[in-house]
């Protein structure tokens, strides 16, 4: 029997959060952490609350902290998360808890909004489409795949302390996705908004974001590219 410890908190009835213990029989199968949660919800306590949708690592809904490491519950097998037959599941750290494993992502989205994550091009639109060479398109690989699950930003101490001022790895990865896009013409305006001591430069390169990204992306490298762009613009 797998020992599962789940963070429980209902602001309407609980004075403070608590950890609740469950025993789960997985039949010896190496299922995903999400399957364990589903099993608990179906068989033991239907009030256990969490977000989930596609259950295959595409929607980014079930970002959780499993045995101390952020990840998507739906694509994290027990063999990867469980240590010593024990699984501790907590909500993503650093964001306000709405209930149990569901966090309020407002601050995360505010930072995402700041980087204006959409293509900006004020030149007249061509008849069919804005063309891009295969080489320029290649520059977007490793940037566009982000699913905004918030695993990276909520594993970043700089984001924990300054979630209102530091854009965080997820937002900065998207900032660079549009800085690197050959079809975007707002590069100068974008860079001008990033040259303060918090937005980009609160990153100290500890690479927690790289360590947890379920899509294998590298926000630290993107932040380095932004810094180099700022440097060559101002130096």
């Amino acid at each position, binding site marked *: 029997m797998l020992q599962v410890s789940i963070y429980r908190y209902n602001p309407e009835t609980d004075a403070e959060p608590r950890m609740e213990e469950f025993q789960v029989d997985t039949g010896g199968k190496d299922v995903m952490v999400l399957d364990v949660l589903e099993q608990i919800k179906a068989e033991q306590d239907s009030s256990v609350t969490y977000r989930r949708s596609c259950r295959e690592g595409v929607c980014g809904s079930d970002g959780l902290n499993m045995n101390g490491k952020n990840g998507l519950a739906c694509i994290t097998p027990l063999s990867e998360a469980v240590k010593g037959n024990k699984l501790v599941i907590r909500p993503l750290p650093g964001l306000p808890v709405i209930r149990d494993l569901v966090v309020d992502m407002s601050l995360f989205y505010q930072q995402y909004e700041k980087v204006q994550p959409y293509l900006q091009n004020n030149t007249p639109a061509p008849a069919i489409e804005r063309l891009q060479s295969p080489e320029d398109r290649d520059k977007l690989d490793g940037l566009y795949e982000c699913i905004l699950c918030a695993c990276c930003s909520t594993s970043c101490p700089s984001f924990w302390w300054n979630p209102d001022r530091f854009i965080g790895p997820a937002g900065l990865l998207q900032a660079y996705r549009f800085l690197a896009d050959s079809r975007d013409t707002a590069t100068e305006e974008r860079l001008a*908004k990033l040259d303060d001591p918090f937005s980009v430069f*609160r990153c100290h390169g500890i690479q927690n974001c790289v360590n947890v990204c379920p899509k294998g992306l590298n926000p630290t490298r993107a932040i380095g590219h932004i810094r180099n762009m700022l440097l060559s613009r101002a130096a």
Partner: protein
Amino acid sequence: MVTAVTSLGRSGLSDWLLQRVSAVVLLAWFLVIGWVVATGIDYAGWQALFATAWMRIFTLLAVLSLAAHAWIGMWSVLTDYLTERLMGSKGNVLRIGLQLCISLLLFIYVIWGVQILWGN
């Protein structure tokens, strides 16, 4: 754009650059001092070394680098842990008070350093 008036250069990029350049200067200074000490030096040799203009200028550069490096570094630490977000308005009072103390200490170090290097 986030405004921050208490950081050293106001711009994140200039602070970041200064932090790296000052780190290189400090490393170079400590390597020189380490090499001098490791190869053996007596009091007269030490005095003769610090009587040369290049060593005095190099040391002053290291002291100024230390001041800039410490200002930027301590500002980063304080704006992480002593903030209005974490502690309410008390955080601002505590942080700005501590920052003033650090600035004063660094100012004293610089003046004291000049006095040691060019005094007598």
